[in-house]
C-alpha cells in the first residue's frame, strides 16, 4: 500500500490526488466547524437548552479574560464572551485562564468551581513567535524553485 501511494505521488494522477486532498480538507474543515459551533454541548448549547443544562459541568481550557467586574468576569476564545461568576481579585483583562464550572440557567452564566491562571502564557506566546520567525527565516534556505515546483535543498 505504501509503495502504491508513493507511486501515486509521482504519477500523472498526482494533481487529482492533490485536488481530492484539498476537497477532503475543505469538507472535514466545514464538518468540524459545524460540529464545534453548533453541536458540541458547551456554553452556547446550554444557553439554548437552559433547563436541560442546569448544573452541568463546563470546562473551558485556555480562554482569554476580556472583562473583569467585582464578582464576575468574561472569557473569550473563538466565541464569547462567556460570563463566569467567581472571585476576580487576582484577574486582569488579558489574562489566560482555564476554568471548570457549572452552568446556571437563571443568570445565564457559569458558576466557577476551579480556575487556573496561566501566568506564563505571554512567555509561551513569545517563544512561539520566535519559533515562527525562525521557521520563516529558515524557509528560503531549505526551498528553491524549479519550473513551477518546489525543490528541497536540505
Amino acid at each position, binding site marked *: 500500500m505504501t509503495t502504491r501511494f*508513493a507511486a501515486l*505521488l*509521482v504519477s500523472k494522477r*498526482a*494533481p487529482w*490526488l*492533490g485536488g481530492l*486532498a*484539498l476537497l*477532503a*480538507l475543505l469538507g*472535514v*474543515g*466545514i*464538518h*468540524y*466547524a*459545524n*460540529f*464545534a*459551533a453548533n453541536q458540541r454541548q458547551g456554553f452556547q448549547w446550554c444557553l439554548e437548552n437552559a433547563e436541560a443544562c442546569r448544573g452541568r459541568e463546563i*470546562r*473551558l*481550557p*485556555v480562554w*482569554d479574560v*476580556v472583562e473583569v467586574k467585582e464578582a464576575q468576569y468574561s472569557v*473569550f*476564545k*473563538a*466565541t464569547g464572551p462567556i460570563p463566569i461568576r467567581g472571585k476576580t481579585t487576582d484577574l486582569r483583562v488579558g489574562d489566560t485562564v*482555564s476554568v*471548570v464550572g457549572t452552568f446556571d440557567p437563571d443568570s445565564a452564566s457559569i458558576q466557577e468551581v476551579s480556575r487556573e491562571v*496561566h501566568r*506564563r*502564557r505571554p*512567555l*509561551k506566546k513569545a*517563544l*512561539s513567535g*520566535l*519559533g*515562527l520567525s*525562525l*521557521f520563516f527565516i*529558515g*524557509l528560503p*534556505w*531549505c*526551498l528553491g524553485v*524549479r*519550473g513551477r*515546483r*518546489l*525543490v*528541497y*535543498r*536540505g
Partner: protein
Amino acid sequence: MADLITHMASGLLVKGATRGRYTGALVAGTVLPDLGARVPAMGFSALAKAGVPVPPEVPYAFEVLHMPVGMLLMCVVLALLFIPEQRQGVFINLVAGCFLHLGVDLLQDHLGVGYLLAFPFSTWDFELGWMGSEATVYLAPLFGAASLGFWWWRMRGSER
C-alpha cells in the same frame, strides 16, 4: 500546544538521533499544525474580540489541521508542490513532524479536554495530561540550543 521552540527542537532531536535526510521538512512538519490551525484561530479571535463580526465556524474550520486526518491531507497537498523525485521524502518527513507535534501536545493537560484524534470518524478526545500547557517554557531555550547542537554534531558530513 507546547511552544514552537520545543516542537522544533523535538524535530531536531529526532533527526540528530536518526541522522536522516530532510531535516527541514521534519522541522517544518512540527510547525505546520500550529501554523495552520492555531495562528488563523488566534487571528480571527482577535478580530472577533475587536468587534469584527466573525462567524464562530470560521476559526474552528482551521482546527482540523491540528488533527491526524487534516494533517495527512495537508501533507499530501504540500508534498505535491515539490518535484516528483522528492515528494515521497518530503511527505514522510512532513507527516512525521506533524505527528511528533501531536505526540508532544498529547503530553499536556487541558482540564481533560483532549485532542480529537479520530475526527471525522469519532468525537472521542484524548490527552495524557502529564504536564501543564506552559510547562516547557523555561526549558525551551535550553532544549532548543541543546537539540540544535546535538543535531549539528550528529549530522557533520551527512546530507541534511
